[in-house]
């Protein structure tokens, strides 16, 4: 068997990389992990900013994010570097992108006022993911931060945030609407007529004003697709860059491990390497004993306190060994990335002390 190259530890990653992307399914502690990584980078003397999506209220309070929009705010603490945090504001990020790409202030204004456009931020799948990546790109381009840590939205499709930039530019480039909005000649005109008839039928179902808004939007957007497409390419390029490290976050439950594996495979398909795996909420292992043997002892002393004590131990031996089994396959799939195990904590993380407690686990290696 070939000797594996020594991969950088999570600590080395947060001390050296310029972008850390925390990804994984919902409810596995991504936001907390992102906050911990940014805080540790600040402790290592770096200027760090963490972009969170939807932090639980008490964590948001701890980070001073209450009532903030898309501007980074500084969190004071005893570290040589700087720690900044911000919440992603999908709509204003999108607005900025439109204004930056518009050929004139009038074009930008016309788009921002369009009802269809106003729905995009809330309704078009992948918009939030795209804007998280857009914000990441923007912060990376600025020189005020050494490292940007981004928390990705909990998506149905784990990879929305990689596909999102491309999907949105594809959407904005929609053939059907281009046929309607461009003045037709010859064959194009014939197609145009067919498209119009199609839209009339759709309008019968959903109402004409809905279609009118959409057509007005695509007309206003004319000429901006290229800027959007270029930007999407740049964002994708940055994600596969050596400056960027993907940190996969999971919990040891079978279903989230399966999702994490699927996620790791898809990242690999997109030429993105998982650089570290953080597994939150691991059950403790009290000894190396086997659940079946302990269960046997529990049966021997059934109905007594000792029997109960054995039964309890057997429960945790079983759950710990199952967690190890589930985790082993995932660890293999992301090897040689380091695996960081964070145990069940006695309470949820909602202040800087809690973040520090989690931080003590990130120096571990498998």
């Amino acid at each position, binding site marked *: 068997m070939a000797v594996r190259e020594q991969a950088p530890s999570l600590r080395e990653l947060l001390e050296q990389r310029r972008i850390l992307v925390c990804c994984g399914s919902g*409810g596995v502690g991504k936001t907390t992990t992102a906050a911990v990584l940014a805080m540790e980078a600040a402790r290592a003397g770096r200027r760090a900013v963490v972009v969170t999506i939807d932090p639980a209220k008490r964590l948001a309070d701890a980070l001073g994010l209450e009532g903030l929009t898309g501007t980074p705010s500084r969190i004071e603490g005893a570290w040589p570097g700087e720690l900044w945090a911000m919440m992603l504001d999908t709509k204003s990020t999108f607005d900025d992108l439109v204004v930056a790409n518009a050929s004139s202030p009038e074009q930008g204004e016309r788009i921002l006022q369009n009802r269809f456009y106003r729905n995009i931020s809330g309704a078009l799948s992948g918009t939030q993911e795209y804007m998280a990546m857009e914000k990441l790109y923007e912060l990376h381009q600025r020189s005020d931060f050494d490292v940007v840590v981004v928390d990705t939205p909990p998506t149905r499709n784990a990879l929305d945030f990689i596909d999102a930039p491309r999907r949105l530019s594809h959407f904005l480039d929609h053939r059907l609407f281009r046929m309607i909005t461009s003045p037709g000649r010859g064959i194009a005109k014939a197609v145009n007529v067919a498209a119009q008839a199609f839209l009339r039928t759709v309008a019968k*179902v959903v109402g004409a004003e809905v279609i009118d808004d959409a057509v007005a939007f695509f007309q206003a957007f004319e000429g901006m697709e290229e800027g959007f497409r270029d930007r999407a390419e740049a964002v994708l390029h940055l994600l596969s860059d050596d400056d960027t490290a993907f940190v996969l976050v999971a919990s040891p439950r079978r279903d989230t491990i399966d999702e994490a594996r699927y996620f790791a495979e898809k990242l690999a398909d997109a030429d993105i390497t998982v650089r570290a795996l953080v597994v939150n909420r691991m059950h403790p292992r009290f000894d190396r004993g086997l659940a079946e043997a302990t269960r046997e002892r529990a049966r021997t002393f059934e109905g007594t306190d*000792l029997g109960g004590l054995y039964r*309890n131990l057997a*429960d945790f031996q079983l759950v710990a060994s199952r967690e190890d089994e589930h985790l082993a396959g995932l660890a293999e799939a992301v090897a040689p990335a380091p695996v960081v195990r964070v145990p069940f904590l006695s309470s949820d993380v909602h202040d800087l002390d809690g973040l520090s407690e989690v931080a003590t686990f990130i120096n571990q290696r498998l």
Partner: protein
Amino acid sequence: MGKTVVSATLARAAARAGLSALVIEVEGKSGLGAMYGQASLEYEEVTLSAGGGPGGEGDVRARTLTPDEALLDYLRDHGLSRISKRLVASGALDVVATAAPGIKDILILGKVKQLERSGEADLVILDAPAAGHAITFLQAARALLDTVRVGPINAQAKEVLEMLTDHARCRVVLVTLPEETPVNELVDTAFSLEDRVGVGLGPVVVNGLYDDVMGVGADPIAAAAAVDATLRAGEADVLAAAARFRMDRMALQAEQVARLAEQLPLEQIRLPFVFTTEIGPAELDLLADRFLAEVERLPEVV
């Protein structure tokens, strides 16, 4: 939070009570099939467990729903199959869905309503999207009525809203874990759903509670002495540490359950943590037993 496990349990419990249940998955890849020892679900309905037998059990059936397929069905039922293929294939549904947010949700809920109305099952269980998405999902009907004022979509939204707000036809069962953040989220979701959608809330399911085990409060050395057993070196410490962990977590869980009861005046159904980490047919039966026992405990619904 274990939504899918609870949906599977609810279906199993209903079947035990002699009702036929249809579980509908809307997010794919849920593992519901595996819990019943079967393959992943498809759009075509499958039977997960057949009823009958001496106990007169009901069937458990299941299927998935996607907006694209629901749209095709809808257009076919409304004599519009002409445009249906093109609408889906061209990706125009994305454009239309952006123009009228909630249209995908209405397609799904409209299909659910149709299945409910057909009377094919005594109980239709929808494994709905998670917390943040749930509100948008269930609110889609009301939101669409503002955007689309005429036509079939408007009619569809009206009928869906009628179903959702009719407490005799539809109840929302919220699922949570006995932990701080999930409890907070659940309380927020409950109030939003009542205020903004007007749905009737059923009991809350608290999932993953550690069962109490006899003897965890006892001193291992004394417990061993009481039955003349000999412990190996260090064994007393291991037993004590494991017992302490369970007691600590049980205390934390009890605290969260009490807090939930205080903040949300809804009945609670409490389900145990399954230590195997995998739910199969055997675990599901155990959970269904507990579910039915918990339902017995609830006051009679008037």
